[in-house]
């Protein structure tokens, strides 16, 4: 059970390494979106500090969502996805592998980059730490949940916007606890309870999302 998982991850990471530009596009999108807000809102640091957790989190959420559009589509087009559905391995295992690889490639860079963006918004050191931890717990959950949407919209015409429509409402709990953790930390209340909720969501989606995703993939290959 673990060997196929590791091989899938290895496979997807190898492919990602051979076409590196895809990784950077997501990261740069994140940076641009987050940097857009000060332009729209104005440069007052007090305001920015107030809204920083929300903005960074929404930015990460949008970036992760846009990157997800691609998670299954290449495999769908070249027929490797249908082969995966036909292996004796449980499809959910393969889904977990693919999502994990995808997160390593697109989610982890966001986590690493976020503190830098937090500095732009004058977040305190404690806030930056909470931001990183909350993203570290939250973005994998986003990837897992988003994979369901990606599988449901696989091969459809209006893919991008439709994916957003399906997935964003489901992202809301992650957003609330993620941004909440940072805010609670900044305001001195301590973000531990938020973070444990995030961890709970992560575990729950790790269990449930692959099932839904593999069902959706079977439908898409029908």
């Amino acid at each position: 059970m673990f060997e196929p998982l590791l091989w899938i991850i290895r496979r997807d990471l190898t492919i990602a390494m051979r076409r590196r530009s895809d990784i950077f596009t997501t990261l740069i999108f994140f940076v641009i979106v987050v940097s857009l807000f000060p332009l729209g809102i104005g440069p007052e640091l007090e305001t920015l500090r107030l809204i920083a957790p929300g903005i960074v989190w929404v930015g990460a959420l949008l970036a992760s969502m846009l990157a997800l559009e691609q998670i299954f589509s290449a495999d769908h087009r070249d027929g490797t996805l249908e082969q995966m559905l036909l292996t004796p391995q449980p499809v959910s295992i393969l889904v977990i592998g693919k999502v994990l690889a995808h997160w390593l490639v697109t989610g982890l860079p966001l986590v690493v980059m976020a503190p830098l963006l937090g500095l732009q918004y004058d977040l305190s050191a404690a806030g930056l730490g909470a931001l990183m931890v909350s993203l570290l717990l939250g973005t994998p959950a986003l990837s897992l949940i988003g994979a369901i949407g990606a599988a449901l919209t696989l091969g459809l015409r209006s893919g991008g916007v439709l994916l957003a429509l399906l997935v964003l409402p489901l992202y809301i709990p992650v957003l609330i606890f993620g941004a909440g953790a940072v805010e609670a930390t900044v305001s001195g209340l301590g973000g531990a309870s938020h973070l444990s909720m995030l961890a709970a969501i992560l575990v729950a989606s790790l269990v449930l999302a692959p099932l839904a995703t593999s069902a959706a993939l079977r439908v898409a290959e029908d």
Partner: protein
Amino acid sequence: MTDAAEPALQIDRLACVRGDCELFRELSFAIGDGELLHLKGHNGSGKTTLLRALAGLLLPESGEIRWHGQNIRSLREEYSRHLLYLGHLNGIKGDLTAVENLRIGAVLDGFDLDDKRAWQVLGDIGLRGREDLPTKHLSQGQKRRVALARLLVNSARVWILDEPFTALDVAAVQLLQDVIHAHVDGGGIAIVTTHQEVAMIGEHTRTIVLGAGHV
């Protein structure tokens, strides 16, 4: 497992619908070990659809497909273990080399394939010198060969091959025919479609024509 006299794969009153149009209905037949089934029919008659249903990729509108007496929907991975499906798409990643493609396929199919054996098989199938190029740089026929290399390393009982001869040159067509016949002679099952004029006739070949209104 079950009664040996019973054919391994039974298709029972199958019906498939694509979009608005019913491709076939009340289709029933059975295939036993050591049989080769040649599926025929004009373009759009539903051959690919039937093969995908047999592979368990497509949910038929009604009817059942049974493997040793059990519905394949309930068997799932248990059935996939005995199956090798090769569709219109090659199912190989253009960014990986032929060797990588073959080895990953093997791991997912549940057996181990070392590097040496992979190189050897790819050489046998006519890709000598191209084993470690990313497959996107190969020609159409060479890509098809990478996909077909799976046939040489796999031990699946049921082969479902959708137009396996496309893009292959004469030598490769001959090789593939031999491989299929060897598989069938060894007690395997093969279900094949092709528009090409290929000698699929062996001792145990049966033919089903779709779209002509009868089986």
